[in-house]
């Protein structure tokens, strides 16, 4: 795949703590103006002998599934010395108001739009998260943060106690703060009873569908969010397995695999994707590469892909798109 460095992206991207020796706390970008929906850019890193994709994911502010799906031909446990690993650090912003916290469950990613201080430019901060597994789905809807707890005590609900007991692994009624506490060092209680945004004592599980419905973050991520967010901040829990958005004259599509509880549908329906694309092109004209849609949905690698040709510059721009080979057989249609 060819790396595309969009000048607009470069101008908008303000990556604060990328690729230091310590894990990335957050990917922070200047909030683009309304009408521009894509932030960041795809990047690469070369694996060291001792690396796993889980290590690289954490160091890069990514979740496990994100990095595995972006690197389907690489062994997650033994990538190998010098192997080039794609970092899918480009995102179409979810279709939701750009305020407070937006959690996109299918994407397993949280977006935080902090209120800018006087004279500051607005920013968006994004973190990988874990969400609820099968039968423990993370709830959707509008909620808010009702309290913040440092070094939280975990009191597992009866349902979780019963599940662990049935598995022969009974839990205590109260888990005090410490290394065995699955909430980690910080927790944000939501107004939906029993649901939290919290840290973890198993950071390797971030970016997977493994929780009882809570939103789990890397320890360094929850600490940064905990310190930044206030009680009362709105939290929108949405499920958008595909996202459509503009960057300049280009329309991007980002598709994520369906979560396990939705897997009985096997494949993401193309109809809502087509509707979303048509909706986007009502406000701005574009020639859509419809012929690529099926393969993008099939791949569902979570990386934004250009699905339009620039109306102002024409087909010559194809050479600068990510999938030039695919573009050779395009069927160009006007919506």
């Amino acid at each position: 795949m060819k790396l595309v460095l969009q000048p607009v992206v470069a101008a908008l991207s303000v990556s604060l703590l990328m690729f230091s020796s310590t894990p990335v706390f957050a990917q922070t970008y200047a909030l683009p103006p309304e009408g521009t929906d894509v932030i960041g850019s795809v990047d690469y890193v070369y694996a060291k002998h001792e690396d796993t994709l889980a290590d690289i994911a954490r160091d890069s502010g990514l979740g496990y599934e994100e990095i595995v799906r972006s690197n389907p031909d690489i062994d997650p446990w033994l990538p190998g010395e010098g192997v080039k690993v794609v970092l899918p650090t480009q995102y179409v912003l979810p279709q939701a108001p750009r305020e407070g916290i937006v959690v996109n469950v299918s994407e397993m990613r949280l977006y935080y739009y902090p209120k800018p201080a006087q004279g500051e430019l607005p920013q968006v901060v994004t973190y990988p998260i874990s969400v609820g597994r099968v039968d423990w789905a993370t709830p959707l809807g509008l909620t808010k943060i009702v309290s913040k707890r440092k070094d939280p005590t975990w009191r597992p609900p009866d349902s979780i106690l019963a599940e662990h007991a049935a598995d022969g692994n009974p839990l205590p009624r109260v888990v005090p703060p410490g290394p065995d506490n699955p909430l980690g060092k910080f927790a944000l209680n939501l107004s939906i009873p029993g649901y939290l945004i919290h840290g973890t004592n198993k950071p390797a599980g971030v970016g997977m569908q493994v929780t009882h419905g809570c939103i789990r973050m890397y320890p360094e991520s929850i600490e940064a969010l905990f310190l930044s967010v206030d009680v009362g901040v709105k939290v929108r829990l949405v499920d958008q397995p595909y996202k459509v958005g503009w960057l300049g004259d280009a329309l991007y599509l980002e598709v994520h695999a369906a979560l396990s509880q939705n897997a009985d549908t096997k494949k993401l329906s193309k109809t809502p994707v087509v509707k979303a694309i048509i909706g986007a092109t009502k406000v701005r004209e574009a020639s859509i590469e419809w012929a690529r849609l099926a393969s993008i949905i099939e791949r569902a690698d979570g990386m934004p892909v250009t699905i339009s040709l620039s109306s102002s510059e024409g087909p010559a721009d194809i050479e600068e798109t990510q999938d030039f080979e695919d573009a050779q057989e395009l069927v160009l249609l006007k919506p």
Partner: protein
Amino acid sequence: MTKFKTVSKLAAVAITAGMLFGCSHADLKSAIADAQSTADAAAADAADALSAANSAQSTATNAQSTADAAQRDADAAYSLASDANDCCEANTDRLDRMFKKSMQK
């Protein structure tokens, strides 16, 4: 073989003619001797050719047998490789599921 038959027929005709006409002429006798010699040589050539053909048939049969054995070995190796690949994929899947399970609360 056709040549051999023709030469044999000519020799037979010459011998018969010699017997019928008394073989008094020296050239005719010489011609008959040459024809006989040629027929003998042709017969020897035919025998050699038959032997060579039999040998080639045997070699081809052996080659076919060797090829069949090689095909069986290749099929067995493919089957083993396929089984190993299935096992590897199953292990990867198992590892992935164990990892995810271990990451649950």
